[in-house]
Each structure stands twice: as structure tokens, then as C-alpha cells.
């Protein structure tokens, strides 16, 4: 192979998806070139065709997809025309794939190292002993704790971030020429994400592996990629090297992606000392069953028209606190008061009026809406249940609510949730909460399953509704950019305890508590040198889990 020829050359690729008797173009005339040792970032909203294009670079299409035009060459081999046998020799050996959710992609019935050794043994790269020794070496390079021993565990015995690194090690097992990373850190906490990012970047550099890095997080792609390609609904928007792309994007769409992070609502002044809080938690301690408490002695107030963000990693007790407020999990000790009146601990003992005042918006809009009910029924039920409206009055109120969330009642009122996009479903979830005309809404990671543009729309909507209706929000999130955008006060939780709390502006200016500092510094920034600077400043050993365990 001549040095000038790129490792992967996709030209004028077109892929159709076939569903329900209709064909839709998923990838439309996209070309891509990737040289050895180069990392290309693919970004775009969901449905842009990033994953389909990434998989096509392996010569693979998902069920229901079909390559209808163009060709894919990997190292001079035509992958579209290649026999199954030729492809079998390439995949796993020269091309590897790292999936979004390592927890779902590992086989839970086999030890990690056995799964690691499978590909090298199948392809005859090494025997079992060599493969295991190599696995331990890779675990060491990826800075997994106990590299000699960790491979002999089952996937469920290892944390999410470690599992993602073990999967990267597995992809490296045959020293491939190309690795495709499909959103490898999207499901992880910020503190864990950073470890995985550092690990991936180092190992790709060490072995001079080419990579395609798929993500919708711009700040992540800024750290990882040499060049970035932006996709929109199957079309290529533009491609440039990372710095040019960040500093001087050519297309409006790219600029709008870049601008998302700038949305920020000014912080409201603190409530006066004698104001009655809408919700106040007083020394709440809660546990599941007879286990150890997962929330310990938590107290904070939420005032009218204000947003309190509760942040922390998964397992820090944020969602449990919300379950205590709604009454799903009665606290062991302590109490929850609504406008200074103590609420019964169990939701079954609360009156309809008390239930009406506390509403919830869920993270996964897919499971939050009954898939068998039409939008009109989903929003209409609380209207009927709480306000007693029926018939035409109920319908009018539902239409008002749909207009409030900026959706056309005529078009959407008779649809099923499956006929809506992710952002629209989340809006319906908001409308259902508003239908009860509550004072207080718990927003549980409402934007974390959404693309940035869509998420920004939801945050703006929440802000507008708060202004109009004097709503109070409790915002549960691990995404600090959301906090920066709409919160007034911040409560940082770790291991069920409140580590730090106060007005937002104070939280984002030093000095912080060590843990807050770690959380803040772990949020990737749009500066391509950010990760290098952070590494230089903190050192490799002071990131993620390692740093948390030192506290």
C-alpha cells in the first residue's frame, strides 16, 4: 500500500433504511477519508446518521438498512463487494468497535478476560496465555486498578467507567488499524468520563491507531479528534480540522451547534429570610428496606419562582431525595413541608390537593408516557382528575396546554407518543405536569437523554414557564452546563450527604469544596487544549474515581 492512500476511503455513500413499507435515505452522498493514526470526530443530532456511517466504515449495516450507492474501501479492500469470509478476517482483527454502553455489550455470563482473549485466539494472533498477558498489559496502560486481577471478574463486578476502559482494551487486543468509538462516554458521569477520555486518547496515540469518534458532545470531540465532520439528517454539513472548525465554522448549522452552550439565565436574587419556602426538607434520612441510608440528614429549601439544582454522580442520592419529596419512599427520619405544612410521608396518605402541588418530569420520556394513549388523553387525564373538567372544557384546556409548550394542538392532540420525537415527548411530559397546575415541579435529568439543540429548547421552555407561572423547580442533574444555564441555587451531593450548597454564582467561583472543584473541572470545555491543560495541572492520578476515592 502506498503511503499516500488513506486507510479508509468512503466515497458518495448512500444508505437506505426500510421500515414499514417505506424507504428513507439515512445517509445521502457522504464521503470520508481517514489516514492512518488519525482521529475523526463525527458529530450531529440523533438521526443524523453518525452511527450508521460509523458502522458502514466496517462494511456493516444494521438490519433494515441497505447500501444503495457509493463504495467503502478499507486499506484498498472494497468492503461493499467483499465476501463474508474476507470481512470476517478484517472485523475484530483490523477493525474494532467500541459500543456506547459497555454494560449492555459485554456478555454478563463470561469473565472479562475470556471475552478479551476471544478475538486474538479466533484470528490466530496469539494463543490464550499471550492474549491474557497482553490484556493485563493493556489494563495497566489504561490505568485500571489491579490490572493483574480485574480481568478475572464478571462484567457486573466492575464499575461503568472501568468497563468502558476494559472494552477499549478489548478493541485493542488485535492491534487494529481502525477503531470505531460509538458514543463511548455518553452514559457516564463527568468524573468518570474524563478517565475514559484520557485512556482512549493515550492508547490511540501509543499504537498509532486510526479512529472514528462518534458523539453529540462537542466539547468531547474537541479533545479527541484531529478532524471533525458535522452531519445533519444524512447529509454532510462540513468538515475541517478541529481548531478551524471550532474557531471559524463555515455553516450556520455548525454555528448554531456551537452557540448552544451559551444559553444562560441570570441568577435571581436570594429569597428574603422570612419568606415561606414552597418545599423544605428538614433533616431527611432515607434508606431502601433495612439497608444503609442512601440519603443522610439532608435539609434545604426551595422558594417560589426559583430553581434549585441538585448535582452529584450517580449513586449520590439525588433521585432518592426526589422520591422522598414525592412520597414514594417515606424517609426514616426527618420531614418534608409544603408551604410550612408538613406533608404525610407516604404519598398514599396525601390528599389529592397535596399530590397536585408536587409534580414530576422524568428523564426517559419514552417510559414516562403511556405508549397506548393519545396525547389528548395523557394531558387530559390530570385536567379531568384534578380540576374536574369534562368534555369540551377539558379539550379546550388540553389545547391551551399544548399551545403553552409550543406544539400545535390540531396536529398533535390525536397522536400516540411513538409518533413524536424525543424532544416533543419531553414537552408532553412537561404539559402533563403543568396540567395539574402545581406550585412545584421536580425535573429529573430532563435533558440528559436529548441532543444539545433540543435540550436547549426544553431549558428555554422551562425558564419561560417559570416566569409566567411562578413555578419552583428542583433540577436533578449531573450536567453542570444545565445548572449554569437555569439554576438559582445549587446543592452538591456525594454519598447521600450535602457537600456544599449556595447561590449558583458563588458555586461557579472558587474557592470550592474539593468535590465541587473536581466536578467543575471535569466538565469538558470547547477548548481543544483543555484536556492537556487539565492533565498538566492535576496530573493523571488526580482525575475521576481515583481522585474521588482520595477524598
Amino acid at each position, binding site marked *: 500500500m502506498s503511503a499516500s492512500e488513506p486507510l479508509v476511503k468512503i466515497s458518495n455513500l448512500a444508505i437506505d433504511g426500510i421500515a414499514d*413499507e417505506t424507504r428513507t435515505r439515512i445517509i445521502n452522498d457522504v464521503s470520508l477519508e481517514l489516514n492512518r493514526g488519525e482521529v475523526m470526530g463525527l458529530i450531529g443530532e440523533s438521526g443524523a446518521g453518525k452511527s450508521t456511517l460509523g458502522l458502514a466504515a466496517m462494511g456493516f449495516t444494521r438490519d433494515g438498512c441497505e447500501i444503495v450507492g457509493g463504495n467503502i474501501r478499507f486499506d484498498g479492500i472494497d468492503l461493499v*463487494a467483499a*465476501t*463474508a*469470509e474476507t470481512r470476517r478476517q478484517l472485523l475484530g482483527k483490523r477493525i474494532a468497535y467500541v459500543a456506547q454502553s459497555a454494560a449492555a455489550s459485554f456478555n454478563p455470563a463470561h469473565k472479562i478476560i475470556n471475552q478479551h482473549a476471544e478475538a486474538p485466539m479466533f484470528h490466530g494472533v496469539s494463543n490464550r496465555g499471550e492474549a491474557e498477558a497482553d490484556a493485563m498489559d493493556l489494563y495497566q496502560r489504561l490505568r485500571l486498578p489491579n490490572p493483574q486481577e480485574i480481568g478475572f471478574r464478571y462484567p457486573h463486578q466492575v464499575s461503568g467507567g472501568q468497563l468502558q476502559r476494559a472494552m477499549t482494551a478489548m478493541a485493542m487486543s488485535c492491534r487494529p488499524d481502525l477503531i470505531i468509538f460509538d458514543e463511548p462516554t455518553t452514559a457516564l458521569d463527568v468524573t468518570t468520563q474524563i478517565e475514559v477520555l484520557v485512556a482512549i486518547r493515550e492508547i490511540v496515540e501509543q499504537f498509532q491507531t486510526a479512529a472514528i469518534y462518534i458523539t453529540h458532545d462537542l466539547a468531547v470531540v474537541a479533545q479527541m479528534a484531529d478532524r471533525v465532520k458535522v452531519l445533519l439528517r444524512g447529509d454532510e454539513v462540513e468538515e475541517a480540522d478541529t481548531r478551524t472548525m471550532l474557531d471559524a465554522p463555515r455553516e450556520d448549522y455548525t454555528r448554531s451547534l456551537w452557540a448552544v452552550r451559551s444559553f444562560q439565565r441570570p441568577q435571581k436574587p436570594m429569597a428574603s429570610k422570612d419568606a415561606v419556602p414552597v418545599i423544605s426538607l428538614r433533616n431527611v434520612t432515607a434508606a431502601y428496606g433495612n439497608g444503609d441510608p442512601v440519603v443522610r440528614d439532608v435539609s434545604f429549601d426551595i422558594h417560589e419562582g426559583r430553581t434549585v439544582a441538585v448535582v452529584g454522580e450517580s449513586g449520590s442520592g439525588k433521585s432518592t431525595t426526589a422520591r422522598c419529596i*414525592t*412520597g*414514594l419512599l417515606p424517609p426514616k427520619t426527618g420531614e418534608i413541608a409544603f408551604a410550612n405544612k408538613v406533608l404525610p410521608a407516604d*404519598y398514599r396518605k*396525601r390528599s*389529592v390537593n397535596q*399530590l397536585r402541588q*408536587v409534580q*414530576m418530569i*422524568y428523564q*426517559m420520556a419514552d*417510559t*414516562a*408516557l*403511556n*405508549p*397506548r*394513549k393519545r396525547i389528548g388523553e395523557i394531558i387530559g*387525564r*390530570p385536567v379531568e*382528575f*384534578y380540576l374536574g373538567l369534562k368534555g369540551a372544557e377539558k379539550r379546550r384546556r388540553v389545547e391551551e396546554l399544548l399551545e403553552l409548550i409550543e406544539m400545535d394542538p390540531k396536529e398533535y392532540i390525536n397522536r400516540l407518543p411513538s409518533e413524536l420525537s424525543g424532544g416533543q415527548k419531553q414537552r408532553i411530559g412537561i404539559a*402533563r405536569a403543568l396540567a*395539574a397546575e402545581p406550585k412545584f415541579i421536580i425535573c429529573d435529568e430532563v435533558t440528559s437523554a436529548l441532543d444539545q439543540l433540543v435540550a436547549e429548547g426544553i431549558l428555554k421552555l422551562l425558564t419561560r414557564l417559570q416566569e409566567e407561572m411562578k413555578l419552583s423547580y428542583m433540577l436533578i442533574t449531573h450536567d453542570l452546563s444545565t445548572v449554569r444555564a437555569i439554576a438559582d441555587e445549587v446543592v452538591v451531593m456525594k454519598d447521600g450527604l450535602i457537600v456544599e450548597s449556595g447561590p449558583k454564582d458563588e458555586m461557579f467561583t472558587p474557592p470550592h469544596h474539593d468535590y465541587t472543584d473536581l466536578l467543575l473541572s471535569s466538565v469538558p470545555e470547547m477548548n481543544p487544549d483543555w484536556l492537556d491543560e487539565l492533565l498538566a495541572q492535576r496530573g493523571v492520578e488526580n482525575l475521576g474515581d481515583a481522585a474521588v476515592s482520595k477524598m
Partner: protein
Amino acid sequence: MPSLSVTYWSALVVAGALALFFGGRQIGAARGVARLRDLSATGAFGYSLLVVTLYQALALYFGPGATFFKWAVHGVVGFGIAGYLFQQLGRHVGTSATRKLFRSMPVTAALGILLIIAYAFVAIFADVIAPYGQAEIFKDANLLPGGDPGMGGSPDHLLGTDQIGRDILSRLIYGAQNTVGIAFVTTLLAFFIGISLGFLAATIGGVLDQVLSRIVDMLMSIPQLIFALLLMTIATAWFGSEKGMVTLFMILIIAVLDSTRVFRLSRAVGMNIVVMDFFEAAKLRGEKLSYLIFSEIAPNAFAPLLAEFGLRFCFVFLTIASLSFLGIGIQPPLADWGTMVRDLSQFIAYAPFPVVGPLTASLPLMAAGAIALLTVAVNFVVDWMLHRASGLKE
């Protein structure tokens, strides 16, 4: 067209598989036919086996003898054509929604629907269709099917008569009403009991769930047919065996025993729905138990439960037929397929005799065939519905 001996047959299968595997791959690679080129060894073996067996079947069909095999071929081909025609009909007639449904439906499911409609029609209009009454006795007993007096039949009794001279066609038609009707009622009852208790256990949980589940475990641990026999004996001993009472006992007993399976399924399906956020939202809204069960859980459990209904119907139907075969199910003189198979079963021994042998042996097979055909039809439809339900989840 000579048929093959087992030795030749196996040798041909292996030779065909090897030729297809090595030769086919070469040709496929040269011509660029992906399906031939990427053929696996097991695939080649499968195709070879199919072709050689198809030849064997044709040889048997066009050769002498093998009367039952020929009947079976006629049946399969005939039903296949009927299913295909029905599917084509559905694709071109009806609303756009039903036309779309028929386009996505395999031929097997179309045939299943056609047969179920036919059975339902026969069962509902049995009084009109049947030429004679189900208990009517004629002087000519033991007439053979076919209606040809030279072959021991009679044009008045197309499918012949049984040992005491009852018209078999009429009894088959009434049998649809009795056997299928009773099975349907029993299955409905079993589902009513099973679903309501299952959803209740899933929603409330705790002690109620434990108590109900353990009772169900206990009932399920005893072999069903023997348990049903035992309960039938106890019931008739305590409450007498007047006309109709035995049938009532049978319906209740089978419904309760079968509702245990329905309970298991609806509890499991309910458990998966209860943990969803929309259910939590409804709970937190303060909704009552009846709303939670009927408006939140039930619509989402519809697909798996409907599929289970089809399967369960077959099992109930077969249990009734077996109980009737054993003599404690549907009581004479009511016609019932299980009883008919039992009464005529000794004629199967005449099968090897030339000319009239197969006709005689077909007497018990007609009722058995009616049972088998309905079971197959229901399963075709259930398979298709399960496939659709699992496809929706993706």
C-alpha cells in the same frame, strides 16, 4: 419416478451439500451472487436436504399406494392455496388499514384466520348447516365415507355413519359447536380469573402477591389432567351428575386450573409495566386501583395476553377432548370430537386392507383432524401476533 432407498437418499444429500458448498461458492464468486458466495456449510446441507427430500416426496406421490400421504399432500396444497387466495383477497378488499395488515401477514397467518372464521361460522350456524340432528339414529350403521354405495357408503350420509347409525357429518358440525364453544367459554373464564388476580398481585405486591403466587404454585405442581380427573370425580360425587352439571363442573375446573398459567403471565407482564415512569406518574396523581389496572396496565399488556389466549385456547380445547375421550367430559348424546375419536378408534386397525381400508380408517381421523386443524390454525395466528408484538418493542 422411482423412490430412493435410505442409503441412496443419504448419499445424495451429502453429495449435493458438498457440490453446492464448493461449486456454488466458486460460481457465486465468479458471477458476483452474494447469496451463493457467502453460503455456509450448514446452509448448503439444508438446501441439499430440501431438494432430495422434495424429490422423494414427489416419487412417493406419483408412485402406487401411500393413500394417506397423498391425502396429506392434497390437504397441505389445498389449504395453502386457500390461504394464499384469502391473503390476496384481504390485500385488495377492505379499508386501507386492513389491506396493510394483510400485506404484512404471512400466508400461514392468513390461512389461520380463514380457518378460524370457518370454524366459528360452522359452530354458530350448526343447526342450519347440519343435514341431520346430532342424536338422530338411522338404520344403516357403519356406513363408510365417500357416498358411493359400491364402496359401502350412501349418498344420504356423505361422511358415513357410526356404529349405532348416527350421521358423522352432522356430528362433526355439532361437535364444533359443543367442543369449540365450551373451550371458548372456559378460556374466557380462565383469562378473567387469571388476569384480574395477576394484575392485582403485580400492582399491590407484598403479602397478597406472595399468597396468590404460592397458591398458584401449589395448583401447578399437580399434573393437570390427573388433577382435573380427581376434581371431576369429587364434584360429581358431591353434587351429583345430572344433565349439564358435569359440563358445568368441567368448565369451572379447567378454567381454574388454566387460570394459574394466565396468572403467571399477567403478573410478569404487569410487573414490567408497574416499574415504568408513566405508571408511577399515575400512582402519584392519586389514581384508584381500578384505573391503574384497566387504563394503565391492561392496554399495554394486550399483545402478549392475546397471544397467550390463542395458545391457552388450544390447550383447553385439547384438555376437554381428552376428558371427553376418557368419558367424563361432554356427555352423550351431545356430539363431541374427543368422544368421536374414542368411539371410532378401533377402525384405525383396518388401514392396511386394500381399497376400503383407508376409507374405514379415516372414520376416527376426521374428528382428530378437525381438532388438529383448529389447533394448527390458532397457532399460525398466534405466531404471527407474537412476531408483531416483539417487533413493536424494537
